[in-house]
């Protein structure tokens, strides 16, 4: 039996990130304590820049139709490279957010010793001894590698491998919060249990689809002709797993709890990157493997999209916790992006890609703002009511956060408007005008709770001992950058639209 050919060059972005992750583990084990943080930062940033360079090179070398690698397990086409590039950019910015430190040297958002019981003597000892654990960096790199694979996998097993590689480090990272550790661990456990459950569905769906098509390759499934019933059940189960990861209703219940409990940099990372990767996978599965069965899955996916928009916007209205509010908003955005998936045309693909890029940056920026608003004891202040008057006392933070909220609301001249326009246009052209109408109504409802926060920040008197804003250089740079991207994509979106338009076709 001849060994399968492995195109190392084509896989280089993922291999670089995985390699960096492995080196990171070694650094964690062998490097002296003082050297860990700088070397981890250098590794993570350097590695992602290297991987980004590899992605760019491949983009330039690739012809527009793309190709497959590792005997059809991985697709290397324009959408794949665009997703990987976006993930790497988001990853780079998230690394800056993760890498923020407190004066004593520890990571600001992460516990010095994750293994100690919350509130125990061991925890206090670790704290006072100035223990620093930087294992979050290699974990983030493993997750990133998994996401990069998840979005480009061209057969169902590779897809599953990607899913697990991205999920397991995320479960762990959710539990690493420095403050409110019990809540963080609860979030992690909840995420893990539900995630494992959904993985089981996913795997079962893979099995049934294999039974239907006799192959695991997405292109093979597209041309298969087996038992229709088996295919339908298979699609349904597979979709449960995918929709769970993107946070679509009715599989969204983990989103608010996990977003709230996880350390804010990780929440930001998840909200931006996981969604990108999972939508990449979702788009590829439905566009490449299942277009022939569209009459069966499109109505269901439309319904899921409507339900997701409705649930996200309606429940977000009642939220008083900023991270939960953003979590439900993220659910609503999942619904909007799903309209692009339902469109099932090239504009739907490129519109969704644009949306993911733009949303990734705004959401990263919004959570970065959340991470710098602190109460007097130094904890994050997540109670929205106590954000009253923040915009007047800290105009920079107020204006930037308002900008992100307006982008989420889809107000023109922000990236959010262009994104919504792109997916709605695709859906309308793709014959789903009812989704557009429901989408704009949902946007109108959603505007209410975004505006409410702006009212609170600018037009309401500040409470006693109001929260303070402590912006480090890294987070300030990141916030400015994401805000600039949000504005630029709103005013002159054409360059990025050109890019996604050229990525409007999956390799088949």
């Amino acid at each position, binding site marked *: 039996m001849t060994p399968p050919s492995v195109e190392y060059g084509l896989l280089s972005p993922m291999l670089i990130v995985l390699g960096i992750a492995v080196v990171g583990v070694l650094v964690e084990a062998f490097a002296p304590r003082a050297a860990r943080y700088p070397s981890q930062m250098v590794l993570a940033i350097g590695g992602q820049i290297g991987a980004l360079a590899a992605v760019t090179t491949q983009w330039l070398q690739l012809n527009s139709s793309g190709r497959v690698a590792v005997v059809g397990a991985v697709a290397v086409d324009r959408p794949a490279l665009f997703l990987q590039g976006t993930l790497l950019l988001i990853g780079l910015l998230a690394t800056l957010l993760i890498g923020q430190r407190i004066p004593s040297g520890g990571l600001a958002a992460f516990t010095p010793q994750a293994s100690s019981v919350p509130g125990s003597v061991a925890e206090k000892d670790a704290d006072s001894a100035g223990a620093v654990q930087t294992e979050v960096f290699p974990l983030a790199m493993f997750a990133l590698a998994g996401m990069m694979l998840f979005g480009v996998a061209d057969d169902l097993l590779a897809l599953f491998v990607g899913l697990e590689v991205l999920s397991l480090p995320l479960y762990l990272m959710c539990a690493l919060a420095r403050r409110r550790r019990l809540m963080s661990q609860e979030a992690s456990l909840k995420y893990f249990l539900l995630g494992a459950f959904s993985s089981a569905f996913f795997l079962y769906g893979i099995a049934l689809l294999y039974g239907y098509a006799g192959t695991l390759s997405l292109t093979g499934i597209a041309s298969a002709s087996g038992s229709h019933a088996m295919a339908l059940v298979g699609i349904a189960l597979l979709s449960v797993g995918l929709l769970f990861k993107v946070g679509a209703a009715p599989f969204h219940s983990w989103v608010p709890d996990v977003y709230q409990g996880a350390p804010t940099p990780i929440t930001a990372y998840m909200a931006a990157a996981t969604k990108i990767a999972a939508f990449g996978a979702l788009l590829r599965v439905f566009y490449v493997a299942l277009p022939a069965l569209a009459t069966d899955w499109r109505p269901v996916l439309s319904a899921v999209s409507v339900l997701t928009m409705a649930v996200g916007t309606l429940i977000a209205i009642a939220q008083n916790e900023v991270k939960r509010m953003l979590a439900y908003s993220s659910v609503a955005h999942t619904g909007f992006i799903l309209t692009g998936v339902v469109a099932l045309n090239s504009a739907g693909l490129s519109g969704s890609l644009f949306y993911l890029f733009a949303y990734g940056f705004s959401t990263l920026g919004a959570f970065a703002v959340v991470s710098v608003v602190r109460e007097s004891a130094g904890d994050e202040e997540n109670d929205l009511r106590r954000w009253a008057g923040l915009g007047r006392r800290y105009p920079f933070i107020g204006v930037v956060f308002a900008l992100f909220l307006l982008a989420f609301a889809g107000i023109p*001249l922000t990236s959010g408007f262009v994104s919504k326009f792109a997916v709605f246009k695709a859906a309308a052209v793709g014959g789903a005008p009812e989704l557009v109408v429901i989408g704009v109504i949902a946007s*109108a409802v959603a505007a209410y709770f975004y505006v409410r926060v702006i009212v609170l920040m600018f037009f309401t008197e500040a409470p006693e001992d109001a929260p303070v804003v402590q912006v480090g250089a890294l987070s300030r740079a990141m916030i400015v950058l994401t805000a600039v991207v949000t504005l630029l994509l709103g005013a002159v979106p054409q360059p990025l639209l050109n890019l996604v338009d050229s990525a409007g076709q999956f390799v088949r």
Partner: protein
Amino acid sequence: MTGMWWLTTLWALPMIGGAVVILLPSSARELARWVALGVSLAVLALVVVLAVRFDPAGPRYQFVENHRWVPSFGTGYILGLDGVALALVVLTAVLVPLLIIAGWRDGGAQGPSYLALILAVQSMVLISLAALDILLFYVFFEAMLIPMYFLIGGFGADRAAASKAAVKFLLYNLFGGLIMLAAVIGLYVVTADSPAMGAGTFDFRAIADAVSTGQLQLSPAVGNALFGGFMFAFAVKAPLWPLHRWLPDAAVQSTPATAVLMMAVMDKVGTFGMLRYCLLLFPAASMTFRPLIITLAVIGIVYGAIVAIGQTDIMRLISYTSISHFGFIILGIFVMTDQGQSGSALYMVNHGISTAALFLIAGFLVARRGSRDIADYGGVQTVAPVLAGCFLIAGLATLSLPGLAPFISEFLVLVGTFVHYPIFAAFAATALVLSAIYILWMYQRMMTGPVSPESRTLGDLVPRELAVVVPLIALLLVLGIYPKPALDVINPAVSHTSTSSAERALK
């Protein structure tokens, strides 16, 4: 004429000016005011040049600029002015410097941001008036809500009430705008599917041409739905009864200058949108909806006037008169006669001037006394004769006294209406009587009679206030006696609109 940057300069000037103002250090508050005033005067100067160079007998759209913007969406950066747009651009350019002077100290400690927001609104209004691309128009039609929202919510006397009014304003208008977004997308799909266009486009002139030549045929259902989406947004903004609920609150709770900016300048984009977009893009649907809209407009005319009579708050009274007048403007647009539409276009300008005069003078009075309650005044004309006299002239203009500007436009609208709808015209004409009641009764209660004890110390208009009032009164008189220059510019644009919609109706 592509390659000339007149209109880009026109909107970029206030935008950049606003950015400069907000970047000034907070200690330079006084400087910020002068910079803002200078910028708005520069805009006015530029508009004067444009108005002089505009050739009423020339092509329909002048100063056209056409550049690429987002080809993926079929939208371009296309600007150009026709006569109606030019008239409103002039109105905007005239009013904004006066508003800056009128609200000289309104910004308080946050003066620079207040002025920057005013300039931002001006810039966005100008670009939406000049846009010849539907998506470009839409983008600024929506985006102007944000600076306006901060103006209403951030600078009113009563913070809590102001922020509530601002939210109401924003939600109403945002909802209208988002419904329009669905229609905008629908229009794209229609053009993309149409053999006449080939690809989806938002080029207003191309679509309007294809519609008027019959190359782009919409099925009645689609046409009605798209018309409904556009009209809903414009009817919220204008506002048409029963979508007017946000206006009185927003007008009362914001500073007088902001309220005028909203009613006299920004809301005109709504009526302008009806005239430009609803009629020319969806002529058949406009005919279908004509009876409904005319009915609502007439209800709005009478309702606004009656409710105004019952008000005890000066500002609220004036804002209800505006609802009545917006009814007239919308009525004139949808009766689809030349007189009606010319009257409406002129009415937009005249209403802007007369409302500005009335509201700003009332604002000066309220600033002196600290109360908006009509009952708190009395005998003001004894202590402040100039103020009272100017208020009377502005009031008489509002009730359309012959010789003052609004008379001609209201007359034209009524004549235009009478041709097709004598009964509606009769109902609308009752507003003439009602307006006499609300204006004269308000004047009587506030300005005549014995001097109330609190009014005794009221001072007359100071030079800064006169600088605001005198130009407005002068414009009311000039346009009342000699409206020809304005009508010369407006008429060709309007006759094009009504001919093409009438032609379509006949087919």
